């Protein structure tokens, strides 16, 4: 499964808590809740509390606790779930498969699976946000957050959970052909259904 010299690292982060909303009043609503809302379409902002707000296109938002659960996010989730939101704010269910891919071989993997050039995005990436890419990888729509971490480039991918088995295993197959993948098993969540 893993190779000691693998140039790729896979981590399933589907277990993270997240929610979503959209609508003409969504931006103001999130700001009123104390979230750091990115001003630009297709960009992300990570606040000091470890909550990422990704702006997808112009008026849809993905909110995820990247540093562990927070009461603030739990409150927002229940508010959205119970539709206790102002007019113009619509809840968006987010049961995504979330994968973080990293390592020196990442760009090679991305170039086999996606038509977007991530290389310059890794250069522009910021630790507290940066650009978000809405694109398709191996036939599956994804939200991608590219950035640079300690061991090189990394990208977090959110995708429809019904594609989880195909998406995860296909990326794994490509990664293995590329020379090996290290998988963080401990945090491998159930989103992909199986671990082949």
């Amino acid at each position, binding site marked *: 499964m893993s190779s000691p010299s693998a140039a790729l690292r896979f981590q399933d982060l589907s277990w993270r808590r997240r929610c979503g909303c959209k609508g003409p009043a969504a931006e103001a609503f999130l700001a009123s809740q104390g979230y750091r809302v990115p001003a630009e379409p297709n960009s992300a902002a990570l606040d000091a509390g470890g909550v990422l707000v990704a702006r997808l296109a112009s008026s849809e938002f993905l909110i995820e606790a990247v540093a562990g659960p927070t009461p603030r996010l739990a409150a927002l989730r229940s508010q959205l779930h119970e539709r206790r939101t102002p007019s113009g704010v619509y809840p968006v269910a987010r049961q995504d498969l979330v994968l973080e891919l990293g390592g020196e071989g990442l760009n090679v993997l991305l170039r086999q699976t996606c038509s977007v050039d991530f290389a310059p995005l890794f250069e522009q990436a910021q630790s507290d946000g940066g650009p978000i890419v809405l694109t398709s990888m191996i036939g599956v729509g994804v939200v991608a957050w590219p950035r640079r971490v300690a061991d090189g480039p990394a990208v977090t991918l959110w995708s429809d959970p019904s594609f989880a088995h195909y998406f995860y295993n296909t990326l794994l197959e*490509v990664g293995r052909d590329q020379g090996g993948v290290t998988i963080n098993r401990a945090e491998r969540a159930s989103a992909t259904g199986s671990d082949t």
Partner: protein
Amino acid sequence: MSRLPQMHGELIDRQRTVEFSFEGRRCQGFHGDTISSALAANGVQIFGRSFKYHRPRGLLSAANHDVNALVQVRTAGRSVPNVRADVVPVEPGWDICAVNTRGGLASDRLAVLNRLAPVLPVGFYYKAFHSKRWFPRWERMFRHLSGLGCVDLAAPRRTTAKRYDFCDVLVIGAGPSGLAAAVAAAEEGAAVVLIDENLAVGGSGLYARGGDDHGAALVRALSARAGAHPRIRILTYTYAAGYYADHWVALVMRDCMVKMRARSLIVAQGAYEQPAVFRGNDLPGVLLASAAQRLLYRHAVLTARRVAVLTANSEGYAAALDALAHGVELAAVLDLRPTPTARSRAAADELARRGVRLHFGVQPIEASAQSSGRLACFEYSSAGTPRARHRLDVDGLWMSVGFAPANALLHQANARLSYQLALEQFVPAWLPEGVYACGKVNGVYELSQRIDDGRDAGACAAWQLRSGAARARQSAPASEECPTHPYPIFAHPKGKEFVDFDEDLQIRDIENACQEGFDSSELLKRFSTIGMGPSQGKHSQMNALRILSKLRGEPIEQLGTTTARPMFHPVPLSHLAGRGFTPERRTPLDAEHGSLGAVWMPAGNWRRPEYYAVAGQSREQAIAAEVAAVRTRVGLIDVGTLGKIEIHGPHAAEFLERVYTGRFANLKIGMTRYALMLDEAGVVIDDGVVGRLAAESFYFTTTTGNSATLFREFGRLATWWRLSVGLVSLTGHYAAFNLAGPAARAVLRAHTALDLSEAAFPYLALREGLIAGAPCRMLRVGFVGELGYEIHLEAEHALGVWRALLAAGKAFDIRPFGVEAQRMLRLEKGHLIVGQDTDGLTNALEIGAPWALKMDKAFFIGQRSLRILERQPRRQQLVGFRLGAQATARPKECHLILDHGQIAGRVTSVGFSPTLGCCIGLALVSPKLAAGAQLRIRIDEGKQIDAEITRTPFYDASGERQRLAQSA
């Protein structure tokens, strides 16, 4: 061996020999040899047989353009057809043979076809295939005779990686102009990718030397600069197979295809040297001068001992000097022109000084072969003695009479090209933004001018990327001579002057095609197949145009050229196929279904349980038991593949009113309604259920196969109509299952505190509440015709609730059921499935559901068409039918309905109903048949059976069971 002593710049490594075999003969080459160069070095003269007449053929271009340099390569466990010998490096142990021969290359039995040429005129395929009676015989014969290499059907599947790549400037062609362009663009700050189809960069700058190393030294210096530049990536043995919009270029490499996205593109692919057309121009030993030079300087291989150079430009004189420089006996230089131009003069004087005979105004007559098939002599007349027939005994004839620009990619990029008489070639007249051309393809032939032209193109491309503004290109310098003869075509009464070497087309074939009326470039191509072989007209298109131009008396520019479509060279199918990605969706209960014995089937791009296998039961028995469970007790099916969408906003109801045929503005909160969707022509395209969550919020479903497409379409419609709505797709994020059967209420009650009484939760109601502690949305719908609850919930809760319901259902002998049981259950109820019981032409008036069409609404998609269709006679009608209980022969879906022997419809759904004990089905039939009582169905093996037309539903016509007020 014809190998020369080591020379500067050769690509071979003489320390590493390569042993291989060709047609059973042991051969030896060096690492760095192509198959062609290694064969030539071993004295092989005949490489293959021609496609149609099976004439012996040798090297022509040594540049990847020869059909006769395609070979079959057998290695351990593999046999690869159509390997391009001109460019593929030979490897140790390869067993190589010619393609499409019977009995081997030397004694090909099909060579008899050469004698049948007079009865195989142009267009004979069309004429031969004209008769239906003879078609099968012709087809068998041609399939046997034609073709190239043999496909190895046992070859293992290769998952060839395909990848994307990106650059600022892509330079295609690493000859002198391409190298200069790459260096210039990189020096201006651009990230450059420079590709070349050869094993090394340099192009003709390194092999067309004219016996002098000065030019090659310049190109070597340029190559070194490009190789050392940090912003230039060089990809050799890579060719650009096609240009696509937005500067996407398909690059074919040895092991994979790369989709290169360039911000700017420089085409520096040079020009293809063109053959002269005369009798015997295809004999082995007659080759392009550039081919001889390539082999000479790249691989140190001599192709002949005594040669004549047939020329019409200074490049031919340069080739003659190269021959002399390497000890080749030069029998004569034969110039088609009356006198040499100023550019050729110095070389002509030098050749004369060295004792070489020069003839001008030469008219080729014919080349003749030895018994081996190899060139023996060349006969011609010349200006001084037009009636005399001169003969040269030579084993090599090098042709250098002109060029055709390699402008296929420019054509694909929608460049406009104009024909310049001064050059006798097409050159770019207008190029799209971000596309540049330089070097020979731009009409520039002199070495220093090509380098200048490339430098200018590279600088302009980089400038535009940096500044965003286009900079005018410097004008191409006027040429000192026309590099291409205007008509290097010399007919012979006995023919065999080949215009197209791929398809064995002669001058008279072009003439005959024109005479038959196929006298435009496009028609000529299609009728004669000129340019349709593996070289795609690289050697034949311009000569064919010249002949056509002469026959029609019109200039070439007015004739135009055919479109050069991708792929530029033949591409291995494994490269095109790539790894192959087939997205498959699974519901959150997928693993659970597996443990319950699911037998899978595809549904759209999902996989779903067709049924659940039970030990000791056949497929049919298992399905029948699942149907029985729903009808008599309770069953549970995963319907999570349904499209699941929420719509919110002040115009949500208005949106649904427009999209669907029904009325939704008046739908009460907490209720659902059937929804039917049409296209603009009134054709049924989808259906589902709409439920109202709140005044401005609805939840609705679509069919499984249409969910993604419709969600995109809804977004488009909302934008187009400028409605204030927010659409949310929950399809993958929500699970859904249908709990159905008389005991459904009792099972559900075990896990919810919700009031499930008929008064509180009536038929078609929607409620939200907890089931087994998970928040759920419940729709009381009756697709399968029993008391049923469709339960929708977030995916993360699906497994817990599913298991809780199965546990509670144990007391009622609950059974999970699959798609096949569901299909039968709904068929018993007469419910149609869009896409199965309808097709791409079935309109809403034909499906027997007038109640679903609210024609009095202001608008819905398809309404206008339905109003027109209402006034017209129906084309077809959906009806139900049944067979007698004793009937043993049963129809299948798509079996035809006959009316007095004529097709009058088809079966859309059919199956044996375990509930009713007979075969039932739906069929789309003519209105005349629909009004009758019986259908005649043509089943397998041409048998015909009768079925009784029956009103639907077949089961529980009053609908009492799904409205069950009281149940267990």
